[in-house]
């Protein structure tokens, strides 16, 4: 048993959660500033802007999901660490990268789009549905990355 294998695998889980979580925090933060601006002037729009503010938060959840699957796969959860070669450890690390990197960047981009969309709700509340769609488009790419990370982590034989 190589001791480094499990370290790489755990690093993978950390990367998935760290990067996507950071991205989501920044994204929700940017959208939150815009939401606060609108609610300062018009508190009745609270519910609508809150929903848009939360959109960039999903990347963090995707990262958490991949991190969770990785942890249970390598036996950190449920006891009994798996016996991993360096190669398998690196494979798991590579599998975690898509959701980590794409999660980070897409959440920031989505946060900015959400801030702009909150501007639509501020001026034209009846166009809420359309305003939701613009930040939701960015979500597509986070989902694609989640899919590949999920398939890869699941497909690696431990």
């Amino acid at each position: 048993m190589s001791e480094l294998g499990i370290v790489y695998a755990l690093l993978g889980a950390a990367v998935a959660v760290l990067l996507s979580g950071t991205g989501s925090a920044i994204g929700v933060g940017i959208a939150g500033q815009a939401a606060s601006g609108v609610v300062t002037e018009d508190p009745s729009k609270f519910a609508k802007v809150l929903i848009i503010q939360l959109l960039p938060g999903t990347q963090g959840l995707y990262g958490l999901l991949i991190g969770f699957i990785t942890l249970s796969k390598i036996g950190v959860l449920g006891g009994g660490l798996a016996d991993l070669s360096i190669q398998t450890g690196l494979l798991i690390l590579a599998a975690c990268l898509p959701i980590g990197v794409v999660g980070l960047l897409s959440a920031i981009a989505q946060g900015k789009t959400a801030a702009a969309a909150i501007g639509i709700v501020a001026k034209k509340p009846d166009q809420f549905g359309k305003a939701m769609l613009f930040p939701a488009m960015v979500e597509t790419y986070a989902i694609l990355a989640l899919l590949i990370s999920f398939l890869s982590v699941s497909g690696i034989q431990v």
Partner: protein
Amino acid sequence: MSNTKYTYAVARIRALETSLLTDASIEQLLACKTVEQALQFLVEKGWGGASSGQDMDKVLEAEEEKTWRVIRDVAPDMSVFDVLSYPKLYHNLKAAVKAVCTQTQNGHLFYDDCPISGEEMLRIVENKDFSRLPGKMSQTAAEALDTLLHTGDGQLCDILIDKAALEAISEAGKRSGEKIIEDYADTTVAIADIRIAVRSQKTGKSAEFMRSAMAQCSGISVDQLIKAALSGMDEIAQYLEGTSYAGGADALRESPSAFERWCDNRMIETMKPQKYETFSVGPLLGYLIARENEIKTVRIILTGKQNHFPDNAIRERIREMYV
């Protein structure tokens, strides 16, 4: 990563933009029969403060104060708005220089809502303590005071200070590092130059006079404008047609009030794209200019109604709205 420090401010301005007067509300205001009715309409729209009642001047003053209060509240950095305070600041200088030279005292000559209040400016000019003035203003003040004392020519003193104000605006625009502030400064200077050319043409001023009054800007060539102004009004219009201020040509041919209206509309046109910005200071500036423009238009309508002007005469002077 682009700048996100204006995110909160812009979102708040977006929410406030919904309460700006639209062209339709201006039409409604125009349709009011008396000035009292028009004021009532504005008060119902939330204009004025608790103590302004139905007093036109107080209502408009309260609105101006409200606008600046919002901007002071949301702007992370007020120094980018310096460019807007220069006209009032230089006006105070002009008034102080004249008050000192003519030894008259009149408190109503000054603006108090700018970095150096009237009283302070008067003290500075009286004591020739020009080092307290910012930047090149100290030099301008000394020069203007000397000019007026030696020549007694009020107009010469005026153009000296006005040109310095335009140059200060242009410089502040470049210094701000924000594209929209630079555009605003450039448009302000260009419109001022065109105004100078038009008025100088009407009063038959010399090329030398115009050169000492106009400031350089990127959209307009001062030399060509002066040349056109010396040849006649049609030549000014012809020159403008070849620049980004082409709308001014038609307005000039129409009437003097149409030209004045165009000057304000052109500024609103420069600001309009800011309605779609989310992460810059632009929407704040746009909102400020839009509010100033709106208050000016309402003042025109109310004064027109007060003096029983015909609707057509008022309508001719109505400015385009931002929203």
